[in-house]
């Protein structure tokens, strides 16, 4: 049952990914101009001068003067053979650039996910069970502030306070001496010492929204007859809560795992940008702004694949947790 469901879903991802690659390549190409126009424009913005003859020569070498479908075919046929092409801007193979930053992105996304759950799960349950208590009001207030404030703004404010009042730099993920050093215990500890700031910044709004969802879902369940029945049968309040209503209310936690995967790349691009985090997001944004097609295309393809995988994983988990789900 479950197996056929999984096989069917996996098979469907193939045509889906092909369609996605075509659409994303078209989207990257959609803005006017190409990599070289944007290169010239960026340089001009700083008062630098560009050699037009050189640009034309590069345009031909990169095949940017070719029709759209020809360019797409060049790209996708390379990708199928595992060659993601060359980044125009950096003259490096795209694959090198991508994997370099993915590790830290995974770290950050996992940290954020754990933080979000660690906060949202107990607080959500608490504020549902003790509805309209002082604690609920405090949690709700913080929740709404967290939801309403853009992450990057919190980041900027924290950075300003850090610099102006503490003389400390809160941006980046490593201290200076570890930035380009090889991995060691020292570097790991250094990473953990820096990681909590972006994790909190990135985690606030998602925890806030999960708290609200958890609270609302649980409130729906708490007064259902099966809860009353269970209580009448003499189950302790804690066991009762955990075994039945919370299990149902968990649904949103599990279905958001699917979103967590693409978050590895696109999550909080602007926050990472502001905090100068060496994660994948800012590189993707740069590639899009510069119209560095192959780099951006590879990221987006990866993003879509991760979304597909993530949705698959959360569907399977949901099926395991929630007996109401059917494999149709």
């Amino acid at each position, binding site marked *: 049952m479950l197996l056929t469901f999984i096989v069917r879903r996996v098979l469907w991802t193939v045509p889906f990914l092909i369609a996605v690659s075509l659409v994303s390549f078209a989207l990257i190409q959609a803005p*006017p*101009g190409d990599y070289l126009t944007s290169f*010239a*424009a960026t340089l001009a913005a700083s008062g*630098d001068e560009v050699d037009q003859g050189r640009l034309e020569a590069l345009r031909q070498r990169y095949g940017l003067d070719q029709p759209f479908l020809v360019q797409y075919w060049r790209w996708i046929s390379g990708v199928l053979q595992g060659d993601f092409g060359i980044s125009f801007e950096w003259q490096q193979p795209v694959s090198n*650039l991508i994997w370099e930053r993915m590790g830290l992105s995974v770290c950050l996304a996992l940290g954020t996910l754990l933080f979000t759950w660690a906060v949202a799960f107990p607080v959500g349950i608490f504020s549902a069970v003790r509805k309209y208590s002082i604690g609920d009001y405090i949690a709700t207030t913080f929740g709404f502030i967290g939801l309403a404030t853009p992450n990057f703004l919190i980041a900027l404010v924290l950075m300003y306070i850090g610099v102006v009042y503490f003389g400390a730099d809160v941006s980046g993920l490593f201290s200076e001496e570890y930035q380009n050093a090889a991995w060691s215990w020292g570097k790991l500890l250094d990473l953990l010492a820096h990681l909590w700031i972006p994790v909190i910044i990135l985690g606030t709004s998602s925890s806030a929204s999960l708290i609200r969802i958890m609270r609302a879902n649980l409130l729906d369940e708490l007064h259902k007859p099966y809860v009353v029945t269970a209580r009448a049968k003499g189950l302790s309040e804690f066991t009762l809560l955990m075994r039945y209503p919370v299990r149902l209310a968990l649904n949103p936690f599990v279905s958001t795992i699917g979103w967590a995967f693409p978050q590895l790349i696109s999550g909080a691009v602007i926050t990472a940008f*502001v*905090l100068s985090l060496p994660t994948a997001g800012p590189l993707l944004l740069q590639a899009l702004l510069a119209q560095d097609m192959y780099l951006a295309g590879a990221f987006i393809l990866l993003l879509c694949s991760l979304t597909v995988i993530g949705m698959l994983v959360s569907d399977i988990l949901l099926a395991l947790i929630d007996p109401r789900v059917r494999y149709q």
Partner: protein
Amino acid sequence: MTPRRSLLSLSMGCALALGLVAPGAAQNAHEAPALAQRVARGELPPLAERIGSQPEVITPLDRVGEYGGRLRFGLRGSSDHNHILRVVGPQGLVRWDPQYTRIVPNVARAYDVSDDARVFTFHLRRGMRWSDGTPFTADDVMFNMEDVVLAGALAPTPPRYKAGGQNVQVEKVDDFTVRFTFAEPYGDFLAELASPLGQHPVLYAKHYCSQFLPKYNPNVADLVRAANAADWQNLFMARCGDIEIPSRWGNPDRPTLDPWVVREPYVGGATRVVMTRNPYFWQVDTAGNQLPYIDELFAPIAQDVQSLVLEAIGGRIDFQIRHLDAPSNRPVLAQNRDRGSFRFIEAASVGGTNMVINLNLTHRDPEWRRLFNTRDFRVALSLGIDRKAVIETALLGEGEPWQNGPFENHPNFHRRLATQYLDYNPAEANRLLDALGLRRGPDGIRLLPSGKPLRFKVDVIPTLQPEQVDMLQLISQQWRRIGVAMDVNPLERTFFYQRTSEGNEHDAAVWGGQASWVPGEIPQQIVPVHHDSRWGIPWVQWYRSGGTQGEEPPASVRERMRLYDQARATVDADARRALMSRVADIAADEFEVFSVSKSLPTYGIASTQLVNVPPSMPSSWYYPTPAPTLPQTWFWATPQRRR
């Protein structure tokens, strides 16, 4: 500022004079302690062998410095490679002096120019070496010119190495002398070499970069495969870079002639760039100390300009002009001067204006083209601008009404071009427009002969200089009073480029019009020869393609193109100036473009502890700021910073 400047030029003048008579300096030279240790350990040859017998002797601006420390400046994550170039400096055969008025030898020890300005002979420094210790000789220049530039190996040969339509001929006279011969006189050649894009003759080290050329390495395909590169051109670019692409700073193994060499490269995933002193750098100070004084350049990469501002406030930036110089950053920087322990330095405008309005004289619609080509119409628009009000409101009072071209204190100053039709005179403007038969419609907006309202768009990039949009909005209101409707059309910069310089689809556009018309600089607002001459893009194409593309321009423009070419061929400064002045005469007669205000100086910050940084420097790409002020002579006043 003027007396200080002249003093400065005096001391620098001495430096240059000394630079030309270098011999003997190498005997009692000194070096950085770290290098002396490496020599003692036998890892490096002694200093005298590293700098050869003819190093350039530099007189520091204030005083002879001491070794040590790091210089920090902020980079942005994308397309900021030219920032590194500006600090490290384009180490070409020649360079500009700190005042941006004279060309002085650089990598070349000296040069001779023939009387007819066709033959340029460069004398190289004996014993000079690349940063890996390999001798630098005439063979390197020959490799760069013959195998790369003239062979068109990576790109077509740039026009700067051509005269009279023919490529320059380069020959090796001996190991330390090369001769460049042009088919026709080419007086601007030295200035072209002094600009950043003129570094090609000495950019690549033959012993390293030749391995990526099929001509020298028949097995280059193996290298390409091993490096996972697309082809040998890609591999060459990735390993050896080009003048202004990021990968120039992406390969620590590439030998250079720069004062600092890459240790932690500028690559896609980088969070910082670190460059360390080149042990073979070929300049010494007057006391015989090898330059640079400062051990390393340290450039953290911030994605966002606001984080750069924060870094500056936090005292983590030692020198920076780029990205920080927006007027909006100035108050917060001024407020935090003490906390960040920095001072302001002036980035002086070379002349001209910050916003020049280009009506498209080659408009695709014949009706608009006819109107824009009517001189009285342009005069009326100029008279319809209340420049004082615009300066008061949009520029916070900082500015002075100005049309175009160099300032009064510059030898190239042209009074009529700079100051005609500056006064606000709506009555006269209305009279001119009435006389053109442009009747007013019911809403007060004048009508074109076809009956369409006189309404056009001015394209602008709002992120480049935000005040341009404010200025245009005020001008739009003022023009409404003379019956002209103008809409401000803010565009993303790539789109702007495509719509104007590539597509010629615009009605009008604005651009920065800084200009002093010195050799090497392109006078794009008085003669349409550059893609920033948005008043006649098809004419630019005609000029650049030698008449095969674009549109043939009218006689007055053709005459200016001819004079400009002649000026470029002329060596004698006065004769060249006279020719440029004739170009300006015609431009003043035609009055094709107009502006609002003189361009203002911007500013940068420099740490209060940093010595030998001039309080003011010209701000220009052709110069390029701050390289000719020689950052390799900057040093730290306090021992703490020298660690």
